[in-house]
Protein backbone atom coordinates (compact mmCIF):
# COMPACT_ATOMS: atom_id res chain seq x y z
CA UNK A 1 0.00 0.00 0.00
CA UNK A 2 2.74 2.45 1.02
CA UNK A 3 4.69 1.47 -2.06
CA UNK A 4 1.71 2.10 -4.25
CA UNK A 5 1.25 5.51 -2.67
CA UNK A 6 4.92 6.31 -3.22
CA UNK A 7 4.68 5.31 -6.86
CA UNK A 8 1.54 7.39 -7.29
CA UNK A 9 3.12 10.43 -5.60
CA UNK A 10 6.24 9.97 -7.72
CA UNK A 11 4.09 9.91 -10.84
CA UNK A 12 2.23 13.06 -9.72
CA UNK A 13 5.51 14.78 -8.87
CA UNK A 14 6.85 13.79 -12.29
CA UNK A 15 3.85 15.15 -14.18
CA UNK A 16 3.64 18.39 -12.17
CA UNK A 17 7.39 18.77 -12.35
CA UNK A 18 7.09 18.35 -16.10
CA UNK A 19 4.30 20.95 -16.37
CA UNK A 20 5.96 23.62 -14.26
CA UNK A 21 9.38 22.78 -15.60
CA UNK A 22 8.08 23.30 -19.12
CA UNK A 23 6.49 26.66 -18.18
CA UNK A 24 9.73 27.81 -16.56
CA UNK A 25 11.70 26.56 -19.55
CA UNK A 26 9.32 28.43 -21.93
CA UNK A 27 9.69 31.67 -19.95
CA UNK A 28 13.47 31.29 -19.87
CA UNK A 29 13.67 30.63 -23.60
CA UNK A 30 11.44 33.64 -24.40
CA UNK A 31 13.59 35.82 -22.16
CA UNK A 32 16.74 34.52 -23.81
CA UNK A 33 15.33 35.08 -27.27
CA UNK A 34 14.15 38.60 -26.43
CA UNK A 35 17.56 39.53 -25.01
CA UNK A 36 19.29 38.60 -28.27
CA UNK A 37 17.06 40.94 -30.26
CA UNK A 38 19.54 43.79 -30.52
CA UNK A 39 19.79 46.38 -33.31
CA UNK A 40 20.52 44.61 -36.60
CA UNK A 41 23.82 45.61 -38.25
CA UNK A 42 23.56 48.53 -40.69
CA UNK A 43 24.74 48.25 -44.28
CA UNK A 44 27.36 50.82 -45.23
CA UNK A 45 28.56 51.34 -48.77
CA UNK A 46 31.90 52.96 -49.45
CA UNK A 47 32.99 54.54 -52.72
CA UNK A 48 36.15 56.14 -53.89
CA UNK A 49 36.15 59.89 -54.69
CA UNK A 50 37.79 60.85 -57.98
CA UNK A 51 38.20 63.83 -60.32
CA UNK A 52 36.39 63.95 -63.70
CA UNK A 53 35.75 66.51 -66.50
CA UNK A 54 32.89 69.08 -66.02
CA UNK A 55 30.40 69.10 -68.93
CA UNK A 56 29.99 72.82 -69.83
CA UNK A 57 27.19 72.44 -72.42
CA UNK A 58 24.50 69.90 -73.21
CA UNK A 59 22.33 70.00 -76.34
CA UNK A 60 18.81 68.75 -75.91
CA UNK A 61 15.22 69.28 -77.08
CA UNK A 62 12.88 70.94 -74.57
CA UNK A 63 9.64 72.89 -74.27
CA UNK A 64 9.03 76.43 -73.06
CA UNK A 65 6.57 77.58 -70.51
CA UNK A 66 5.55 81.15 -69.62
CA UNK A 67 7.08 82.52 -66.43
CA UNK A 68 3.83 83.99 -65.23
CA UNK A 69 0.43 82.54 -65.86
CA UNK A 70 -2.78 81.87 -64.08
CA UNK A 71 -4.99 78.87 -63.68
CA UNK A 72 -8.54 80.03 -63.27
CA UNK A 73 -11.10 77.95 -61.53
CA UNK A 74 -14.60 78.54 -60.28
CA UNK A 75 -15.73 78.42 -56.70
CA UNK A 76 -18.99 76.84 -57.67
CA UNK A 77 -19.83 74.35 -60.36
CA UNK A 78 -22.54 74.99 -62.89
CA UNK A 79 -23.53 75.15 -66.53
CA UNK A 80 -21.62 77.73 -68.64
CA UNK A 81 -24.09 79.90 -70.57
CA UNK A 82 -21.73 82.48 -72.10
CA UNK A 83 -18.02 82.22 -72.92
CA UNK A 84 -16.84 85.82 -73.54
CA UNK A 85 -13.32 85.23 -74.92
CA UNK A 86 -11.38 83.27 -77.54
CA UNK A 87 -8.19 81.38 -77.01
CA UNK A 88 -5.17 83.74 -77.28
CA UNK A 89 -7.20 86.94 -76.68
CA UNK A 90 -5.81 89.83 -74.66
CA UNK A 91 -8.30 90.67 -71.93
CA UNK A 92 -8.62 93.74 -69.74
CA UNK A 93 -8.53 93.40 -65.99
CA UNK A 94 -12.06 93.13 -64.64
CA UNK A 95 -13.60 91.70 -67.80
CA UNK A 96 -16.14 88.94 -67.30
CA UNK A 97 -14.87 85.81 -69.02
CA UNK A 98 -17.82 83.51 -68.69
CA UNK A 99 -21.26 83.40 -67.25
CA UNK A 100 -22.81 80.51 -65.39
CA UNK A 101 -26.49 79.72 -65.59
CA UNK A 102 -27.91 81.63 -62.66
CA UNK A 103 -31.39 80.15 -62.35
CA UNK A 104 -29.92 76.78 -61.53
CA UNK A 105 -32.16 76.28 -58.50
CA UNK A 106 -34.90 75.52 -60.95
CA UNK A 107 -34.85 73.06 -63.84
CA UNK A 108 -37.50 72.01 -66.32
CA UNK A 109 -37.60 68.52 -67.70
CA UNK A 110 -39.61 68.22 -70.89
CA UNK A 111 -40.77 64.63 -71.21
CA UNK A 112 -42.82 65.43 -74.31
CA UNK A 113 -46.10 67.24 -73.64
CA UNK A 114 -45.30 66.85 -70.00
CA UNK A 115 -43.12 69.42 -68.27
CA UNK A 116 -41.78 68.72 -64.83
CA UNK A 117 -40.37 71.62 -62.83
CA UNK A 118 -37.72 70.72 -60.28
CA UNK A 119 -36.81 73.26 -57.64
CA UNK A 120 -34.02 73.17 -55.07
CA UNK A 121 -34.59 74.98 -51.78
CA UNK A 122 -32.29 76.64 -49.30
CA UNK A 123 -31.71 74.82 -46.00
CA UNK A 124 -35.12 74.08 -44.50
CA UNK A 125 -36.13 70.54 -43.50
CA UNK A 126 -32.63 69.49 -44.61
CA UNK A 127 -29.91 71.22 -46.61
CA UNK A 128 -30.98 69.44 -49.82
CA UNK A 129 -34.73 69.78 -50.17
CA UNK A 130 -36.19 69.40 -53.66
CA UNK A 131 -39.74 69.79 -54.99
CA UNK A 132 -41.18 68.56 -58.26
CA UNK A 133 -44.19 70.10 -59.99
CA UNK A 134 -46.13 68.29 -62.70
CA UNK A 135 -47.71 71.16 -64.62
CA UNK A 136 -50.18 69.02 -66.55
CA UNK A 137 -51.99 67.78 -63.45
CA UNK A 138 -50.97 70.68 -61.19
CA UNK A 139 -49.53 68.21 -58.73
CA UNK A 140 -46.68 69.24 -56.44
CA UNK A 141 -44.42 66.58 -54.99
CA UNK A 142 -43.08 68.37 -51.95
CA UNK A 143 -40.68 65.81 -50.56
CA UNK A 144 -40.11 66.32 -46.86
CA UNK A 145 -40.77 70.04 -47.06
CA UNK A 146 -44.33 69.08 -46.15
CA UNK A 147 -45.32 66.76 -43.31
CA UNK A 148 -48.93 65.79 -42.69
CA UNK A 149 -49.97 63.76 -39.63
CA UNK A 150 -46.35 62.71 -39.01
CA UNK A 151 -44.72 65.39 -36.86
CA UNK A 152 -42.31 67.56 -38.91
CA UNK A 153 -38.64 66.77 -38.26
CA UNK A 154 -36.11 69.60 -38.19
CA UNK A 155 -32.86 68.25 -39.64
CA UNK A 156 -31.83 71.49 -41.29
CA UNK A 157 -32.91 74.88 -40.02
CA UNK A 158 -36.14 75.89 -38.33
CA UNK A 159 -35.74 79.49 -39.44
CA UNK A 160 -34.93 78.38 -42.98
CA UNK A 161 -38.00 76.16 -43.05
CA UNK A 162 -40.28 78.93 -41.80
CA UNK A 163 -38.79 81.25 -44.42
CA UNK A 164 -39.42 78.69 -47.17
CA UNK A 165 -43.11 78.31 -46.32
CA UNK A 166 -44.06 81.62 -48.02
CA UNK A 167 -42.48 80.90 -51.42
CA UNK A 168 -43.61 77.29 -51.15
CA UNK A 169 -47.24 78.31 -50.59
CA UNK A 170 -47.10 80.53 -53.66
CA UNK A 171 -46.33 77.60 -55.96
CA UNK A 172 -49.36 77.17 -58.20
CA UNK A 173 -50.74 73.68 -57.79
CA UNK A 174 -54.01 71.96 -57.02
CA UNK A 175 -52.74 69.22 -54.76
CA UNK A 176 -49.59 68.18 -53.00
CA UNK A 177 -48.01 64.78 -52.42
CA UNK A 178 -46.16 65.29 -49.13
CA UNK A 179 -43.09 63.40 -47.97
CA UNK A 180 -45.13 62.09 -45.05
CA UNK A 181 -48.90 61.80 -44.95
CA UNK A 182 -51.66 61.56 -47.55
CA UNK A 183 -52.09 63.64 -50.71
CA UNK A 184 -53.83 66.90 -49.85
CA UNK A 185 -55.27 70.05 -51.32
CA UNK A 186 -52.75 72.86 -51.94
CA UNK A 187 -51.67 75.11 -50.27
CA UNK A 188 -53.91 74.10 -47.35
CA UNK A 189 -51.57 71.13 -46.82
CA UNK A 190 -49.10 73.56 -45.27
CA UNK A 191 -51.35 74.80 -42.49
CA UNK A 192 -50.64 72.17 -39.81
CA UNK A 193 -46.92 72.22 -40.42
CA UNK A 194 -46.76 76.03 -40.33
CA UNK A 195 -48.68 76.11 -37.06
CA UNK A 196 -46.36 73.54 -35.45
CA UNK A 197 -43.12 75.16 -36.60
CA UNK A 198 -44.26 78.61 -35.52
CA UNK A 199 -45.28 77.26 -32.12
CA UNK A 200 -41.94 75.52 -31.70
CA UNK A 201 -40.02 78.67 -32.62
CA UNK A 202 -42.14 80.85 -30.37
CA UNK A 203 -41.73 78.53 -27.36
CA UNK A 204 -37.96 78.22 -27.85
CA UNK A 205 -37.55 81.98 -28.21
CA UNK A 206 -39.49 82.49 -24.99
CA UNK A 207 -37.27 79.98 -23.16
CA UNK A 208 -34.13 81.63 -24.48
CA UNK A 209 -35.33 85.10 -23.54
CA UNK A 210 -36.17 83.81 -20.08
CA UNK A 211 -32.70 82.31 -19.67
CA UNK A 212 -33.92 78.73 -19.30
CA UNK A 213 -31.39 75.99 -20.02
CA UNK A 214 -31.69 73.76 -23.08
CA UNK A 215 -32.84 70.71 -21.15
CA UNK A 216 -35.91 72.58 -19.88
CA UNK A 217 -36.83 73.90 -23.30
CA UNK A 218 -36.52 70.41 -24.80
CA UNK A 219 -39.16 69.21 -22.36
CA UNK A 220 -41.64 72.04 -22.85
CA UNK A 221 -41.34 73.66 -26.30
CA UNK A 222 -44.11 72.68 -28.70
CA UNK A 223 -45.91 70.33 -26.26
CA UNK A 224 -49.25 72.09 -26.84
CA UNK A 225 -49.12 70.56 -30.35
CA UNK A 226 -49.00 67.00 -29.03
CA UNK A 227 -52.56 65.95 -29.90
CA UNK A 228 -52.17 66.98 -33.56
CA UNK A 229 -49.32 64.70 -34.56
CA UNK A 230 -48.25 61.11 -34.83
CA UNK A 231 -44.78 60.16 -33.51
CA UNK A 232 -44.81 63.32 -31.41
CA UNK A 233 -42.94 61.61 -28.56
CA UNK A 234 -40.20 60.43 -30.88
CA UNK A 235 -39.34 63.76 -32.46
CA UNK A 236 -40.69 66.80 -30.63
CA UNK A 237 -37.99 67.02 -27.97
CA UNK A 238 -35.36 66.44 -30.62
CA UNK A 239 -36.82 69.25 -32.74
CA UNK A 240 -36.91 71.49 -29.69
CA UNK A 241 -33.27 70.70 -28.90
CA UNK A 242 -32.13 71.55 -32.43
CA UNK A 243 -34.37 74.61 -32.63
CA UNK A 244 -33.18 75.95 -29.28
CA UNK A 245 -29.52 75.57 -30.29
CA UNK A 246 -30.25 77.35 -33.58
CA UNK A 247 -32.39 80.17 -32.21
CA UNK A 248 -29.94 80.93 -29.40
CA UNK A 249 -27.86 82.60 -32.09
CA UNK A 250 -30.59 84.97 -33.21
CA UNK A 251 -29.97 88.63 -32.56
CA UNK A 252 -31.98 89.57 -29.54
Amino acid sequence: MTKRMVIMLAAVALVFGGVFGFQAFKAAMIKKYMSTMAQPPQTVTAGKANVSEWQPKITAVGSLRAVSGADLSLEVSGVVDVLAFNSGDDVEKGTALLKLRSDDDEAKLDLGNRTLTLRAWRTAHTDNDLTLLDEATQTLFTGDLVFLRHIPVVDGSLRGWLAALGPLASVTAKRAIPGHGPAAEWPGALDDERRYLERLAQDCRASIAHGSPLIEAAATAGVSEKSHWELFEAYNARNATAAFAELEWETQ
Partner: protein
Amino acid sequence: MFDPTDKYELRSMVRQSMQVLWLAAFALVLGGGLTQPSLAAEPENPWPSLARDIFNGRDLADGAGLIAIEMPYRAEDAAIVPVTMRATLPPGDTRALKAITLVIDQNPAPVAATFQIGAGVTMISTRVRIDSYTNVHAVAELSDGQLYASTVFVKASGGCSAPTAKNAEEAKANLGQMRFRQFSRPTDGPVSSPREAQIMIRHPNNSGLQRDQVTLLYVPAFFVRELRVWQGEQLVLAMDGGISISEDPNIRFNYLPNGATRFRVEAVDTDGHVFTGEWPVDVAM
Protein backbone atom coordinates in the same frame (compact mmCIF):
# COMPACT_ATOMS: atom_id res chain seq x y z
CA MET B 1 1.99 -5.73 -1.53
CA PHE B 2 2.64 -4.90 -5.11
CA ASP B 3 2.55 -7.71 -7.56
CA PRO B 4 2.67 -6.81 -11.26
CA THR B 5 0.86 -9.99 -12.06
CA ASP B 6 -2.09 -9.10 -9.93
CA LYS B 7 -4.60 -7.87 -12.48
CA TYR B 8 -6.80 -6.13 -9.99
CA GLU B 9 -3.83 -4.28 -8.50
CA LEU B 10 -2.66 -3.28 -11.98
CA ARG B 11 -6.05 -1.97 -13.01
CA SER B 12 -6.39 0.14 -9.90
CA MET B 13 -2.93 1.58 -10.52
CA VAL B 14 -3.80 2.46 -14.09
CA ARG B 15 -6.97 4.11 -12.85
CA GLN B 16 -5.00 6.13 -10.31
CA SER B 17 -2.47 7.18 -12.92
CA MET B 18 -5.29 8.25 -15.21
CA GLN B 19 -6.72 10.36 -12.40
CA VAL B 20 -3.37 12.01 -11.87
CA LEU B 21 -3.04 12.66 -15.58
CA TRP B 22 -6.50 14.27 -15.67
CA LEU B 23 -5.49 16.41 -12.72
CA ALA B 24 -2.29 17.41 -14.51
CA ALA B 25 -4.16 18.18 -17.73
CA PHE B 26 -6.60 20.30 -15.75
CA ALA B 27 -3.72 22.13 -14.07
CA LEU B 28 -2.14 22.74 -17.47
CA VAL B 29 -5.33 24.18 -18.91
CA LEU B 30 -5.77 26.33 -15.82
CA GLY B 31 -2.16 27.51 -15.94
CA GLY B 32 -2.36 28.22 -19.65
CA GLY B 33 -5.62 30.07 -19.18
CA LEU B 34 -4.08 32.32 -16.58
CA THR B 35 -1.14 33.31 -18.70
CA GLN B 36 -3.20 34.26 -21.75
CA PRO B 37 -5.75 37.09 -22.06
CA SER B 38 -9.20 35.56 -21.94
CA LEU B 39 -11.42 36.06 -24.95
CA ALA B 40 -14.21 37.90 -23.18
CA ALA B 41 -17.56 37.58 -24.89
CA GLU B 42 -19.12 40.48 -23.00
CA PRO B 43 -17.88 44.03 -23.59
CA GLU B 44 -15.65 45.00 -20.75
CA ASN B 45 -16.41 48.01 -18.62
CA PRO B 46 -13.79 50.44 -19.92
CA TRP B 47 -13.92 52.70 -16.89
CA PRO B 48 -11.26 51.10 -14.63
CA SER B 49 -8.58 51.26 -17.31
CA LEU B 50 -9.78 54.67 -18.56
CA ALA B 51 -9.61 56.08 -15.06
CA ARG B 52 -6.13 54.67 -14.59
CA ASP B 53 -4.88 56.17 -17.85
CA ILE B 54 -6.53 59.57 -17.51
CA PHE B 55 -5.63 60.16 -13.88
CA ASN B 56 -2.26 58.37 -13.82
CA GLY B 57 -3.45 55.73 -11.40
CA ARG B 58 -4.54 58.20 -8.74
CA ASP B 59 -7.29 57.09 -6.39
CA LEU B 60 -10.84 58.07 -7.29
CA ALA B 61 -13.22 58.36 -4.39
CA ASP B 62 -17.00 58.14 -4.69
CA GLY B 63 -18.28 61.60 -5.54
CA ALA B 64 -21.76 61.17 -4.08
CA GLY B 65 -22.70 64.34 -2.22
CA LEU B 66 -19.69 66.24 -3.60
CA ILE B 67 -20.01 66.26 -7.38
CA ALA B 68 -23.27 65.76 -9.27
CA ILE B 69 -23.71 65.08 -12.97
CA GLU B 70 -27.08 65.51 -14.70
CA MET B 71 -27.98 64.30 -18.17
CA PRO B 72 -31.23 63.12 -19.72
CA TYR B 73 -31.54 59.30 -19.42
CA ARG B 74 -32.49 59.11 -23.09
CA ALA B 75 -30.90 61.80 -25.21
CA GLU B 76 -33.18 63.53 -27.70
CA ASP B 77 -30.51 64.47 -30.20
CA ALA B 78 -27.34 62.42 -29.76
CA ALA B 79 -25.27 65.24 -31.23
CA ILE B 80 -26.57 67.80 -28.70
CA VAL B 81 -26.90 66.13 -25.31
CA PRO B 82 -27.05 68.61 -22.44
CA VAL B 83 -24.85 67.83 -19.44
CA THR B 84 -24.65 69.73 -16.16
CA MET B 85 -21.96 69.23 -13.52
CA ARG B 86 -22.34 70.69 -10.06
CA ALA B 87 -20.07 70.75 -7.06
CA THR B 88 -22.27 70.12 -4.04
CA LEU B 89 -19.79 70.33 -1.17
CA PRO B 90 -21.53 70.23 2.22
CA PRO B 91 -21.48 73.50 4.20
CA GLY B 92 -18.62 72.58 6.59
CA ASP B 93 -16.28 71.50 3.77
CA THR B 94 -13.65 74.21 3.26
CA ARG B 95 -12.15 72.67 0.13
CA ALA B 96 -12.73 74.32 -3.24
CA LEU B 97 -13.34 72.88 -6.67
CA LYS B 98 -10.17 72.94 -8.77
CA ALA B 99 -11.01 71.03 -11.93
CA ILE B 100 -13.68 68.83 -13.50
CA THR B 101 -12.96 66.19 -16.13
CA LEU B 102 -15.88 64.96 -18.20
CA VAL B 103 -15.43 61.41 -19.51
CA ILE B 104 -17.85 59.71 -21.91
CA ASP B 105 -16.75 56.08 -21.51
CA GLN B 106 -17.88 54.65 -24.86
CA ASN B 107 -16.98 57.59 -27.09
CA PRO B 108 -14.05 57.15 -29.50
CA ALA B 109 -12.16 59.84 -27.57
CA PRO B 110 -13.59 59.43 -24.07
CA VAL B 111 -12.25 62.63 -22.46
CA ALA B 112 -14.83 65.16 -23.64
CA ALA B 113 -13.32 68.10 -21.79
CA THR B 114 -11.31 69.17 -18.79
CA PHE B 115 -12.36 72.33 -17.03
CA GLN B 116 -9.93 74.24 -14.82
CA ILE B 117 -11.98 76.24 -12.40
CA GLY B 118 -11.48 79.71 -11.05
CA ALA B 119 -12.90 80.97 -7.79
CA GLY B 120 -16.60 80.68 -7.24
CA VAL B 121 -17.56 78.33 -10.08
CA THR B 122 -19.70 75.45 -8.81
CA MET B 123 -21.77 74.65 -11.92
CA ILE B 124 -20.82 74.00 -15.53
CA SER B 125 -23.32 73.06 -18.19
CA THR B 126 -22.47 72.18 -21.79
CA ARG B 127 -23.58 69.98 -24.73
CA VAL B 128 -21.86 66.84 -25.92
CA ARG B 129 -22.02 64.16 -28.57
CA ILE B 130 -22.76 60.62 -27.45
CA ASP B 131 -21.77 57.77 -29.73
CA SER B 132 -23.47 54.83 -28.01
CA TYR B 133 -25.18 53.82 -24.78
CA THR B 134 -22.65 54.82 -22.17
CA ASN B 135 -21.71 55.77 -18.68
CA VAL B 136 -20.63 59.37 -18.36
CA HIS B 137 -18.28 60.29 -15.54
CA ALA B 138 -17.62 63.67 -13.98
CA VAL B 139 -14.40 63.65 -11.98
CA ALA B 140 -13.84 66.60 -9.70
CA GLU B 141 -10.47 67.54 -8.29
CA LEU B 142 -10.72 69.47 -5.04
CA SER B 143 -8.16 71.88 -3.65
CA ASP B 144 -6.63 69.14 -1.44
CA GLY B 145 -5.79 67.16 -4.59
CA GLN B 146 -8.34 64.41 -3.96
CA LEU B 147 -10.36 63.14 -6.94
CA TYR B 148 -14.07 62.34 -6.72
CA ALA B 149 -16.07 60.64 -9.46
CA SER B 150 -19.79 60.58 -10.13
CA THR B 151 -21.50 58.79 -12.97
CA VAL B 152 -24.70 58.77 -14.98
CA PHE B 153 -25.92 56.41 -17.69
CA VAL B 154 -27.16 57.83 -21.01
CA LYS B 155 -28.98 56.16 -23.86
CA ALA B 156 -28.07 57.75 -27.18
CA SER B 157 -26.23 56.70 -30.28
CA GLY B 158 -24.60 58.04 -33.40
CA GLY B 159 -23.81 61.47 -32.01
CA CYS B 160 -20.18 61.49 -33.05
CA SER B 161 -20.84 60.64 -36.67
CA ALA B 162 -24.10 62.57 -37.12
CA PRO B 163 -23.62 64.89 -40.08
CA THR B 164 -22.31 68.14 -38.73
CA ALA B 165 -23.39 71.63 -39.61
CA LYS B 166 -26.98 71.12 -40.56
CA ASN B 167 -26.31 74.21 -42.58
CA ALA B 168 -22.67 73.90 -43.66
CA GLU B 169 -22.37 77.17 -45.61
CA GLU B 170 -23.65 79.23 -42.74
CA ALA B 171 -21.32 77.47 -40.32
CA LYS B 172 -18.31 78.34 -42.47
CA ALA B 173 -19.28 81.99 -42.81
CA ASN B 174 -19.78 82.41 -39.08
CA LEU B 175 -16.70 80.52 -37.82
CA GLY B 176 -15.47 81.88 -34.51
CA GLN B 177 -18.36 84.23 -33.81
CA MET B 178 -18.91 84.51 -30.09
CA ARG B 179 -21.81 85.41 -27.93
CA PHE B 180 -21.77 86.02 -24.21
CA ARG B 181 -24.92 86.05 -22.10
CA GLN B 182 -25.33 87.02 -18.48
CA PHE B 183 -28.38 85.77 -16.67
CA SER B 184 -28.73 88.44 -14.05
CA ARG B 185 -32.19 89.33 -12.91
CA PRO B 186 -33.56 92.05 -10.68
CA THR B 187 -34.20 89.41 -8.04
CA ASP B 188 -30.51 88.48 -7.88
CA GLY B 189 -28.96 89.23 -4.54
CA PRO B 190 -26.06 91.56 -3.78
CA VAL B 191 -22.99 91.76 -5.98
CA SER B 192 -21.20 89.07 -3.98
CA SER B 193 -23.73 86.30 -4.67
CA PRO B 194 -23.11 83.80 -7.50
CA ARG B 195 -24.32 84.73 -10.97
CA GLU B 196 -24.73 82.74 -14.17
CA ALA B 197 -23.27 83.39 -17.60
CA GLN B 198 -22.99 81.56 -20.90
CA ILE B 199 -20.33 81.61 -23.60
CA MET B 200 -21.24 80.42 -27.10
CA ILE B 201 -18.84 80.11 -30.03
CA ARG B 202 -19.64 79.30 -33.65
CA HIS B 203 -17.54 76.34 -34.65
CA PRO B 204 -18.41 73.12 -36.51
CA ASN B 205 -16.27 71.19 -33.99
CA ASN B 206 -15.89 68.41 -36.57
CA SER B 207 -15.23 65.11 -34.83
CA GLY B 208 -13.34 63.48 -37.71
CA LEU B 209 -16.01 60.77 -37.76
CA GLN B 210 -18.53 62.66 -39.84
CA ARG B 211 -18.89 62.15 -43.56
CA ASP B 212 -19.31 64.80 -46.18
CA GLN B 213 -22.79 64.04 -47.55
CA VAL B 214 -21.74 64.77 -51.13
CA THR B 215 -18.21 63.35 -51.45
CA LEU B 216 -18.76 60.67 -48.78
CA LEU B 217 -15.24 61.38 -47.53
CA TYR B 218 -14.58 61.84 -43.84
CA VAL B 219 -14.42 65.46 -42.73
CA PRO B 220 -11.12 65.95 -40.86
CA ALA B 221 -11.33 66.64 -37.14
CA PHE B 222 -11.44 70.40 -36.51
CA PHE B 223 -12.49 71.59 -33.09
CA VAL B 224 -12.05 74.14 -30.34
CA ARG B 225 -9.28 72.77 -28.16
CA GLU B 226 -8.94 75.60 -25.67
CA LEU B 227 -11.37 78.11 -24.31
CA ARG B 228 -10.65 80.52 -21.49
CA VAL B 229 -12.91 83.00 -19.73
CA TRP B 230 -11.54 85.81 -17.57
CA GLN B 231 -13.31 88.22 -15.28
CA GLY B 232 -10.97 91.19 -15.30
CA GLU B 233 -7.57 89.55 -14.85
CA GLN B 234 -8.97 86.56 -12.96
CA LEU B 235 -9.45 83.27 -14.77
CA VAL B 236 -13.01 82.03 -14.30
CA LEU B 237 -12.93 78.93 -16.45
CA ALA B 238 -10.55 77.19 -18.81
CA MET B 239 -11.66 74.30 -21.00
CA ASP B 240 -9.48 71.83 -22.83
CA GLY B 241 -11.98 70.40 -25.27
CA GLY B 242 -12.14 67.40 -27.55
CA ILE B 243 -14.29 66.02 -30.35
CA SER B 244 -17.16 65.09 -28.04
CA ILE B 245 -18.17 68.71 -27.51
CA SER B 246 -21.16 69.55 -29.74
CA GLU B 247 -21.09 71.84 -32.73
CA ASP B 248 -21.15 75.52 -31.69
CA PRO B 249 -19.64 74.90 -28.22
CA ASN B 250 -21.85 76.34 -25.53
CA ILE B 251 -20.87 76.55 -21.88
CA ARG B 252 -23.03 77.90 -19.13
CA PHE B 253 -21.48 78.39 -15.70
CA ASN B 254 -21.89 80.27 -12.48
CA TYR B 255 -19.26 82.52 -10.93
CA LEU B 256 -18.69 84.98 -8.13
CA PRO B 257 -18.49 88.59 -9.31
CA ASN B 258 -15.10 90.03 -8.31
CA GLY B 259 -15.88 93.65 -9.09
CA ALA B 260 -14.20 93.60 -12.52
CA THR B 261 -16.00 95.45 -15.28
CA ARG B 262 -15.16 93.25 -18.24
CA PHE B 263 -15.31 89.62 -19.31
CA ARG B 264 -12.69 88.40 -21.75
CA VAL B 265 -12.80 85.15 -23.71
CA GLU B 266 -10.15 83.49 -25.83
CA ALA B 267 -10.60 80.30 -27.85
CA VAL B 268 -8.08 78.37 -29.93
CA ASP B 269 -9.01 75.65 -32.42
CA THR B 270 -7.02 72.75 -33.82
CA ASP B 271 -6.02 74.76 -36.90
CA GLY B 272 -4.52 77.43 -34.65
CA HIS B 273 -7.24 80.03 -35.23
CA VAL B 274 -7.53 82.30 -32.21
CA PHE B 275 -10.90 83.85 -31.45
CA THR B 276 -11.31 86.53 -28.81
CA GLY B 277 -14.17 88.52 -27.39
CA GLU B 278 -14.79 91.05 -24.66
CA TRP B 279 -18.00 92.09 -22.94
CA PRO B 280 -18.87 94.49 -20.13
CA VAL B 281 -20.09 92.87 -16.92
CA ASP B 282 -23.78 93.57 -16.38
CA VAL B 283 -24.23 95.76 -13.35
CA ALA B 284 -26.39 94.12 -10.72
CA MET B 285 -29.68 95.84 -10.33
